[in-house]
């Protein structure tokens, strides 16, 4: 810990800081040990916050929500009118897109509705996607589009997929543009940024379930509520990426804008946004992926489509059907992800064209129009071209269900042995240990860590948030959460970091690994749960495996990225100095990649936390379970309080690790703000 000294000295200006840091740690540890040993008998409130002292926050929130819906008014309009307005804003474009992709344009109501125009046929949709993919990424991407959409069509997922696609087509532009506007505002007005940045943090760490409850309450059950939830979920990351991208625009470009006498508006739309486009496109891609991530969860409040198919299969424990719908989501996700990335690359690397006519300059646009018209006409002549006949659909559902059964029959003892060994030797002792800790001591140690890594503000934040958790009466659930996440994250890192290291400098391997982790990340989190439940039945162990599988991707990705980003000149220098490959890895590459890897750890924790509510389905006893119960009972207050507790844990972890990463970066002389420029 003495190594922390110099930075402390530089920051606070205390000459004796090295010994001070050490001293504080010692005192804290001693106090912690005393609390642990004696709090139970001498000061029970420091061990466990008394139930009688817990304020009735949840009930108050519930009352407030009811008041909001029934009575609140902004003067000109009531709150409920406001939410109806929002619904209408989303509903209109959704109906329109859904008509194009799925229902066709109808005239009249209900069962008397007459179709005045059919939806675009499967052939038309595939044609347009293939052409767009070709325009963005050439022949390979076009082939991918054929494979992905072909799978959806062949396996009978087309109708659901179009419903899902419609909600994504509506949610993504709203989320992306909204996030961009918020980002622009945050960059322009410091005060605004200061106001929204804690909200963004909270939104990114709060589990989706926690705000599904209020959304359900305010907007009712249906696709509109689901799209709103998706937007709320996908907008904060876009805002954040927009802020980073806009801030990352080279100062010279900004100076250029001012020197040419741009007005504020010109500065934003003619200089900053175009110059930040590569970064912004990453954000758009992110919005697409997050929207797809939400597909299943959103179906809990009425989204329909593929998500609903997966959910109902899960409820029936029909593994095969769930898998096919799940894979259809993945196919859609992979296709949209790759296509949007290719478009992003194309805008960045566009080369000049010396074409003349519109046709010559926009061949893909022309081809797309032609395909749409042709598919429409073909659909009139040959009905199978408009609607894929059910008789031609395939299914492998039975096969998968049989496979799981077979494994269960033949490997039951082996699986059980592994599970029990881990449970008895690792999981349960760790859980007991954490649950036995006094909350005051934990808060104190967290505070000292915050102080050492960053300063008093972080220390205060950590202490206040942990105290709030204790006061809310959810301390035990919070500790269970930490236990489950902690173990899962450790396992995810133990598996992920070596894979990242191994694949980082092997381009061929990395391509494969990247494909796998991209797929893992787009797989809806429920999909992980299904096979594990079937093999290990419900319980903490099952939850842990599902979390590890879900949180593995960032551990691999950030490790590999971090290693790949190390300045090749430094590696060259190391090689010139005669380092062996192992020394090179440990002394140079891993060291320099450390900040990036810590970000990966951070991400891993965040993903693990976001999985909690899903693993609640298999009977864990943590905060996720609290939220889940609240959702089924539509108990807004309880859901929000438990959600906030998860968010607090996430914020504490996030701040501590970010501070650590910033420290590591400063020590390595890598500046946080793109020092490369």
């Amino acid at each position, binding site marked *: 810990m003495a190594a922390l000294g110099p930075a402390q000295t530089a920051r606070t200006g205390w000459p004796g800081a090295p010994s001070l840091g050490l001293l504080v740690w010692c005192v804290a540890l001693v106090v912690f040990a005393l609390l642990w040993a004696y709090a139970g008998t001498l000061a029970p409130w420091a061990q466990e916050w008394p139930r009688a002292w817990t304020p009735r926050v949840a009930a108050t929130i519930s009352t407030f929500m009811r008041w909001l819906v029934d009575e609140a008014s902004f003067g000109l309009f009531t709150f409920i009118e406001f939410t109806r307005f929002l619904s209408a804003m989303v509903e209109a474009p959704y109906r329109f897109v859904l008509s194009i992709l799925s229902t066709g344009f109808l005239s009249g109501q209900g069962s008397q509705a007459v179709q005045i125009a059919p939806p675009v046929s499967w052939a038309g949709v595939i044609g347009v996607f293939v052409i767009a993919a070709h325009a963005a990424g050439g022949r390979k991407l076009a082939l991918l589009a054929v494979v992905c959409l072909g799978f959806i069509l062949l396996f009978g997922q087309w109708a659901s997929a179009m419903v899902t696609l419609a909600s994504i087509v509506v949610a993504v532009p709203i989320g992306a543009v909204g996030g961009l506007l918020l980002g622009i505002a945050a960059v322009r007005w410091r005060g605004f940024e200061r106001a929204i940045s804690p909200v963004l943090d909270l939104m990114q760490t709060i589990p989706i379930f926690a705000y599904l409850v209020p959304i359900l309450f305010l907007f009712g059950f249906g696709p509109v509520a689901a799209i709103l939830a998706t937007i709320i979920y996908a907008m904060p990351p876009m805002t954040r990426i927009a802020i980073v991208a806009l801030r990352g625009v*080279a100062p*010279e*470009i900004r*100076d*250029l804008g*001012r*020197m*040419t*006498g*741009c*007005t504020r508006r*010109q500065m934003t739309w*003619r*200089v900053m946004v*175009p*110059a930040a*486009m590569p970064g912004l496109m990453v954000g758009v891609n992110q919005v697409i992926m997050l929207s797809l991530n939400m597909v299943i969860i959103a179906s809990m409040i009425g989204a329909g489509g593929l998500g609903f198919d997966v959910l109902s299969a899960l409820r029936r424990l029909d593994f095969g059907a769930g898998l096919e719908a799940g894979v259809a989501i993945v196919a859609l996700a992979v296709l949209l992800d790759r296509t949007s990335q290719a478009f992003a690359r194309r*805008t*960045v*690397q*566009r*080369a*000049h*064209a*010396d074409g003349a006519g519109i046709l010559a300059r926009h061949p893909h646009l022309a081809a797309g129009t032609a395909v749409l018209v042709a598919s429409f006409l073909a659909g009139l002549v040959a009905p199978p071209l408009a609607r894929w006949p059910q008789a031609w659909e395939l299914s492998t559902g039975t096969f998968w269900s049989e496979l799981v059964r077979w494994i269960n029959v033949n490997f039951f003892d082996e699986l059980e042995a592994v599970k029990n060994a881990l449970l008895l030797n690792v999981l349960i002792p760790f859980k007991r240990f954490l649950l036995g800790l006094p909350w005051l001591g934990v808060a104190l140690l967290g505070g000292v860590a915050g102080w050492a890594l960053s300063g008093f503000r972080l220390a205060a934040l950590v202490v206040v948030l942990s105290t709030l958790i204790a006061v809310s009466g959810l301390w035990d659930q919070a500790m269970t959460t930490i236990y489950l996440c902690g173990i899962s994250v450790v396992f995810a890192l133990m598996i992920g970091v070596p894979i990242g290291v191994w694949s980082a400098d092997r381009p061929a391997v990395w391509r494969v690994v990247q494909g796998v982790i991209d797929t893992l990340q787009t797989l809806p989190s429920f999909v992980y749960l299904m096979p594990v439940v079937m093999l290990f039945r419900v319980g903490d162990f099952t939850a842990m495996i599902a979390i590890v599988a879900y949180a593995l991707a960032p551990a691999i990705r950030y490790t590999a990225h971090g290693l790949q980003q190390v300045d090749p000149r430094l590696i060259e220098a190391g090689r010139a100095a005669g380092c062996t490959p192992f020394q090179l890895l440990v002394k140079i590459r891993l060291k320099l990649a450390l900040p990036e890897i810590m970000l990966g750890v951070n991400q891993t924790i965040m993903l693990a936390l976001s999985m909690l509510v899903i693993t609640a389905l298999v009977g864990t006893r943590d905060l996720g379970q609290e939220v889940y119960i609240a959702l089924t009972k539509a108990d807004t207050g309880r859901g929000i309080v438990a959600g906030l507790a998860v968010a607090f844990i996430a914020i504490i972890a996030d701040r501590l690790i970010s501070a650590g990463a910033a420290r590591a970066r400063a020590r390595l002389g890598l500046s946080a703000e793109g020092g490369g*420029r």
Partner: protein
Amino acid sequence: MPDTEAPEAAAKLVCRSVWKFFGPDAERLGKAADAGTLRSDQLAGATAVAAVRDVSLSIREGECFVIMGLSGSGKSTLVRCMSRLVEPSAGEILFDGENLLAASDRRMIEIRRRHMGMVFQNFALLPHLTVLGNVAFPLEVQGVARARREARAMEMIGLVGLSGREHFFPRELSGGQQQRVGIARSLAVEPDLWFLDEPFSALDPLIRREMQDEFMRLQSVLKKTIVFITHDFDEAIRLGDRIAIMKDGAVVQVGTPEEIVLAPATDYVSEFTRNVTRAKVVKVAALSSPADGTTGGDTVGEVSDRATIAEAAPLFGQAGTRLLVKDRDGSIVGVLERERVSAMMMQG
């Protein structure tokens, strides 16, 4: 500073006691500097960085004024103060007699649109626009009609020798070509005052040399008032009519290349001038002796008083001992002796 009123009247841009602080107590220090109560112990104890310290300069109409200094000496900050991209903490900036620091935002936009152009070290080209779009950008911002701005831009592109590449994107060009685009863009609005912040520093030595020649050619045609930043002393004496040398935010000497080479004000300055070939900097006028009655006779030729000694030397031929020195109007102003030239050439 002994800047009298007279030269200021002819000056394009005047800086009076300009300070720029960065850091937490910048504002307090700025106020103190403005009030003239800033003490050196205050500066030493402050946590703020004084990037520009008490700089007073006047840049004359039509001259190429070079600001030279090592990395971190505050050149970029100073030049950004001059165009108010950076708000000076204290002092005054007069542009054509108008106090820039008192100008409203609207007025500043107006001034920058019509009267100032800037070239950046890393080119600052907009990646989403073609060469044509980039060069036309300042005009587009002003709302000039498409046909007119593109015609003007094509003219500028021709001027910097990039015709035929107007539809290329910046990333398809080499560094030297990219900087030509930057130059063309800054000239598109016909600025009266042209800032160049280390325009050639990011280029290879050969390309840099070529771009310097190009720059001199442009300047001989355009005759702009120029503020040129460099950290390369050779570039400074090659291009500058006058040079200001900066160290730690302060200007240590201002003068013509000749003055600086012949009479460096401090050890810091002589550190730069030591390796300079004097004959390439010193002008004939500085070494010529007054013309006496013996015009003609043994003189072997004539030379302009603005030529450098290095240029004059070959004119002596094998055995000539004197050259006639003529000024801009062609009248004889003196003679140049062979011994004085060879003595200077010997010094290196």
